[in-house]
């Protein structure tokens, strides 16, 4: 009797899986927050309503972890994902990214026409931008007077700021890397190392990730943190207060653009292109500000009022050329480590 029961269950499982296999499956690798709190849910809903497809988001870690998974799977000859969403501008020219994504044409993605030209950093269109944002300093206006605020990198070295700054490690965190690249643009190579040496007394700690850094900042451990220019908008909309404010150094922010692409070898190219086009549509792009806390790539997307009022767009954007990053990252991280560790 028991055995028949088992057989029944097996048959049901078999039946279940073959039923699901009727529809084509579109697998999208992305990072955890995009899937659980970002617009992924709405994207899946809309895309499945208009296409005969089953969309599956796989997002078990941050985008680096998912990229590692994608690279490994490809090495072993497995097509794990059809679309990858979450590549940063600084990674565009990297060796590990090369050849991973299919070049696209603008005919395939009609909504590309709505994307600001300055975001289209990849000429082959293997990678298409879907959002962008700025790394800036964020400070607690209860702790730091707005008049006495540092306005340049050099003013940040002022001894009144001793142990007042929380940074992220460029080796393990994306905002951390952006900040390092920003200092290299500002002070040149190798001048940036002198700046870091001088900065260290004012640094309380360099946390492993943005989350830990922001935790420390919220816990009142230090009044300044490297974070995003949309943080005031976030704390107004999600927390009802505006005392976490953006601090612009040199009237700049370090600009980061985030990309998606179709994974080489996919059998669902058409569906994948349709998916990418949907992500760029105004309907989805208008969700980006208050789920991703980033600026949409689509110029026509309307921003929510409070986001528009409080999210800061720096007058001037700093950005390192991706090919320069690819060429030097290894050395920069090594030099940076040697200065900071044990320093």
């Amino acid at each position, binding site marked *: 009797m028991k055995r028949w029961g088992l057989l029944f269950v097996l048959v049901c499982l078999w039946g279940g899986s073959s039923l699901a296999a009727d529809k084509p499956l579109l697998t999208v690798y992305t990072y955890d927050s995009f899937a659980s709190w970002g617009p992924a849910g709405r994207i899946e809903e809309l895309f499945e309503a208009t296409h005969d497809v089953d969309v599956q988001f796989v997002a078990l870690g*941050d985008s680096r972890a998912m990229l590692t*998974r994608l690279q490994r799977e490809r090495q072993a000859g497995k097509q794990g994902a059809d679309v990858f969403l979450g590549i940063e501008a600084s990674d565009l020219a990297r060796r590990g990214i090369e050849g991973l994504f299919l070049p696209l044409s603008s005919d395939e993605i009609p909504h590309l026409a709505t994307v600001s030209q300055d975001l289209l950093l990849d000429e082959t269109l293997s990678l298409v931008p879907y959002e962008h944002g700025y790394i800036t300093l964020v400070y607690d206006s209860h702790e730091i007077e707005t008049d006495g605020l540092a306005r340049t990198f050099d003013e940040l070295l002022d001894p009144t700021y001793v142990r007042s700054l929380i940074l992220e490690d460029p080796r393990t965190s994306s905002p951390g890397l952006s900040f390092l690249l920003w200092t290299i643009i500002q002070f040149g190579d190798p001048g940036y190392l002198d700046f870091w040496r001088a900065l260290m007394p004012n640094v*309380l700690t360099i946390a492993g990730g943005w989350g830990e850094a922001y*935790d420390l900042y919220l*816990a009142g451990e230090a009044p300044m943190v490297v974070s995003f220019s949309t943080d005031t908008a*976030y704390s107004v909309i999600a927390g009802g*207060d505006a005392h976490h404010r953006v601090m612009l150094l040199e009237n700049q922010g370090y600009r980061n653009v985030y990309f998606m692409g179709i994974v080489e070898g996919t059998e669902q190219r058409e569906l994948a292109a349709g998916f990418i086009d949907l992500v760029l549509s105004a309907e989805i792009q208008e969700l980006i500000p208050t789920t991703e806390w980033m600026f949409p790539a689509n110029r026509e997307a309307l921003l929510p009022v409070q986001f528009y009022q409080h999210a800061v767009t720096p007058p001037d954007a700093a950005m390192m050329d991706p090919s320069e990053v690819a060429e030097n990252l*290894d050395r920069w991280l090594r030099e940076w480590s040697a200065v900071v560790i044990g320093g």
Partner: protein
Amino acid sequence: MSPRRIHRLLIAGLPLAFLAMAFYLPVGRLFYDALRVEGRFSLEPVRAILTDPYVLRVIGFTAKQALLSTLLSVAIGLPWAYIFTRYRFPGRRLLRSLTIVPFVLPAITVAVGFILFFGNNGHLNRMLMDLFGLSRPPLSVLYSLRGIVLAHAFYNAPLITRLVHAQWETIDPAYEESAQSLGAGRLRRFVGITLPSLMPGLMTGAALAFIFCFLSFPIVLALGGARFSTVEVEIFTRFVVLFQEDSGAVLALVEIILSLLFTFGYLWLEGRFSRPVLSIVRHPTAHLFRRWTVGKVLLWLFISVSGVLFLGPIVSVVVDSFTRVWGGETMVTVHWYRTILSPDYSALIGTSPLGAIGNSLRFALGAMVLAVSVGMPMAYVVARFRFRGRRLFDTLTMASLGVSSVALGAALLSAFLRPPLMLANGVVAIILAHSILAYPFVVRAIVPVLEGLRRGPIEAARTLGASPMRAFLDVELPLVRRAVLVGAVFAFAVSLGEMSATILLAQPEWKTMPLVVNDLRAARSFGGASAMSCLLMVATSCAFLFIDRSGERVLGGGRWRK
């Protein structure tokens, strides 16, 4: 071949075949690929790494913090083992089951707890400032080696406590009693008799704690900061950020060799101290709350200080999960619990938090059963068989703990995509990966106790005609049951806390509890992450209580109690 040899080969062969397939070959392949320069095998990459002064400095710091962390873990764990063995108090069994909870907490939860409690602006400092009217925070714990070492002790002292306690219960109190009747003082008895008999368990615990701290990564960065990075951070950078898999793998190779060298040293020491003890006899216990002596006062002082270390961060996370800042006002609320338990939380994608609890417990149960099935025969081989290179073999059973989690994740992911393991994809892959990380705990927990057993009762059973199997099941197993249980509990705990391999192998619907904690944080829901951490603590506490209770029953041996 004699039946005896076949029997031995089977005991050793099956688990070894499993480990070869699921661990040694995948990881070996990774290292082998890394050491091939232009198609030829070369040690040049290793030499290059070992002559880089920066890498050497990082290795030096890694070893130093691991050593200090191990010492502090022992200093806290050993007295607690003493308390559990020698004192009775209400809730003793409950507390003993719960000691393991810190060990499973995601690094990020511990980091948050430490920040909220020990931070310059944390509860402890603010309390002390109010109490003594100070204007500056008196304790500076974070952003220094102190914070790292304290957090590592938070994780590893429970490990020492459980292992030493399991060993302590196998020591016949008669030895101490006769020493006492011969006039030996308390200290003399402890140093001369108890400590040497405890050495195997203590050394084992210290070895495991050391390896853990040696490979530690997120805790070090969160509480110490980048100024204190370890080898593991360097490996992560090379693998994941720089896409330099080969140099990452070479560094991982250096790391595993170092941690195995340390292990070898510990095991050698353990072997020197191991001495036969009798069987599980209930120790005479004193009541913890009665008869106040100077010693008792000191003991209570220790309990209070270590209580602050363990409860402070945990309570801070619990408090955090019930508070919400809105418009600058702090409120007490169940908002975060409502958020994460609401049905529309990731209704479309992945797993709900409750589903994640189910997943975690299921994977942990599977990994525990597999780890015990593999670990028990391995422990038997190490403790009972005599062969050349036994110590080396014993050391190698620890290899999966000494491997960098980044490198192991990469090796396993590749292995699970190729035959023969590609058949075991999905849930099975995760359970296999977890059990590989978990089985060394089973081996390490059992070996010292098994080695310490007197052969008398076993030989008696054999003389009376019992087969080796029967003698093992009826005589040895009940005698080592507490050790098996401790190993199983830690196997369960390792699986619950594992993240890096899970991220690479899992499908969205199999998200585990720590992954959901991360998820919530990535989405800026810090309160939600704290609430999820609390659910994790409750779920794991219940699981450990259940395992401890039912494990004692299943492994039997009640009749061996006097």
